[in-house]
């Protein structure tokens, strides 16, 4: 039994690399999109605010699995042809973006209005206000929940296995298909996911403590 699992380790490692790669792509892309849309939600004109609100509430209201199938199976019907890998990344990114939007809204919204007003009073432009006054303060509130949310991206990446992408989850299932050693392999997989996510949540907790000096 052990030799069979050891034999599969390089294959599982390849799957793990895909898991990390998907997670990284999703985290980076959703960070960019989420911050832009989040700023749009807080400061944008009314139509943009509504659009972002509807986007975020819709995406967060449906299961990530449904979103993924919708993107993957639905896109060819409207003339878009993406590889399953990029369809999965797109779906997971859409989902994560909606979360990042909410983190940004919460973080920026928690900065007292007086800060903005003071910045305006000394004649800073909108962009200067954001860069020098709002963002540095909001960043500390954004970071802990965001890092914590990275664990969701790693966990969510396991769903790409359903589109036939050989990530860690799929690699485990394939090795089980050959060896019938279901329990040891699932436990091994669980421990790998656990190690990554637990490290991330420890980092998040540490940051939170570090920034806990901030008071309203």
């Amino acid at each position, binding site marked *: 039994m052990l030799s069979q699992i050891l034999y599969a380790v390089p294959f599982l490692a390849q799957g793990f690399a895909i898991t990390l790669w998907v997670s990284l792509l999703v985290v980076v892309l959703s960070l960019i999109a989420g911050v832009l849309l989040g700023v749009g939600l807080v400061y944008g004109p009314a139509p943009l605010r509504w659009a972002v609100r509807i986007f975020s509430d819709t995406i967060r209201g449906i299961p990530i699995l449904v979103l993924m199938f919708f993107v993957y199976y639905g896109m060819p019907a409207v003339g878009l042809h993406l590889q399953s890998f990029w369809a999965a990344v797109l779906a997971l990114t859409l989902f994560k973006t909606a979360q990042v939007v909410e983190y940004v809204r919460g973080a920026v919204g928690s900065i007292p209005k007086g800060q903005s007003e003071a910045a305006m009073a000394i004649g800073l432009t909108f962009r200067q206000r954001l860069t020098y006054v709002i963002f540095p303060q909001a960043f500390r509130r954004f970071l802990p929940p965001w890092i914590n949310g990275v664990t969701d991206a790693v966990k969510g*990446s396991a769903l790409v296995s*359903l589109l036939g992408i050989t990530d860690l989850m799929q690699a485990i299932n394939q090795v089980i298909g050959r060896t019938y050693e279901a329990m040891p392999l699932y436990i091994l997989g669980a421990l790998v996911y656990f190690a990554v996510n637990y490290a991330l949540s420890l980092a998040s907790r540490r940051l939170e403590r570090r920034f806990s000096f901030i008071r309203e």
Partner: protein
Amino acid sequence: MGYALNFNLIWRHFDKLWGGLLLSLELAVISIAIGIVIGLVLAVWYVSAGRTVRAIIAAYVEFIRNVPLILLVYLVFYGLPTVIDIAYSAPTSFVLTLSVYSGAYLVEVFRSGLEAVPRGQLDAGKAIGLTPWQRLLHVRLPTMLRITLPALSNTFISLFKDTSIASVISVPELTYGAQWINFNTFRIVEVYLVTTAMYLVTGYALLFALRLVERRFRAAR
């Protein structure tokens, strides 16, 4: 290349979606009921227990929270029966998984809720001569439940969405119904539009209803 929407086939097979939605709700309700029991027992135990028990409960919570739900679903359905002599149907297996899963989240919710019960209430309970058991039952738990009600309804709604994972072990809930129609009729865009709408309407209806309940039972300030 145009794509003409045609919902006829969706309505013809709508029973798959409607029955699926009802099963999704059923799975979520049963799982949260069992999850609440797990969460309550462990949270009450946690706040009064020694270091070892706390470490074990914390390990359970951290393990579940840091592993993908889909892996837990596979582990319980395909893995567990290979090492212990049990047999269960896919829905039972999923309910078991989701209960243990939600239990881990609810331990945290209830534990922080118990800590948020004002000290003065417990002292008052002591002053009127309640036993520790009575203080727990009549003072601590009711107040804690009021405090945790919003978190509890959020957990329920997120569990309702998580039931879509049951489709991977062929439990015929809403997502499974959607996939069935997808593969059998190829009205792909239509079926996912309808399914999305069903999840959204149900989810927000639940949210609205639970907010009303929360307002009714809001903890006194």
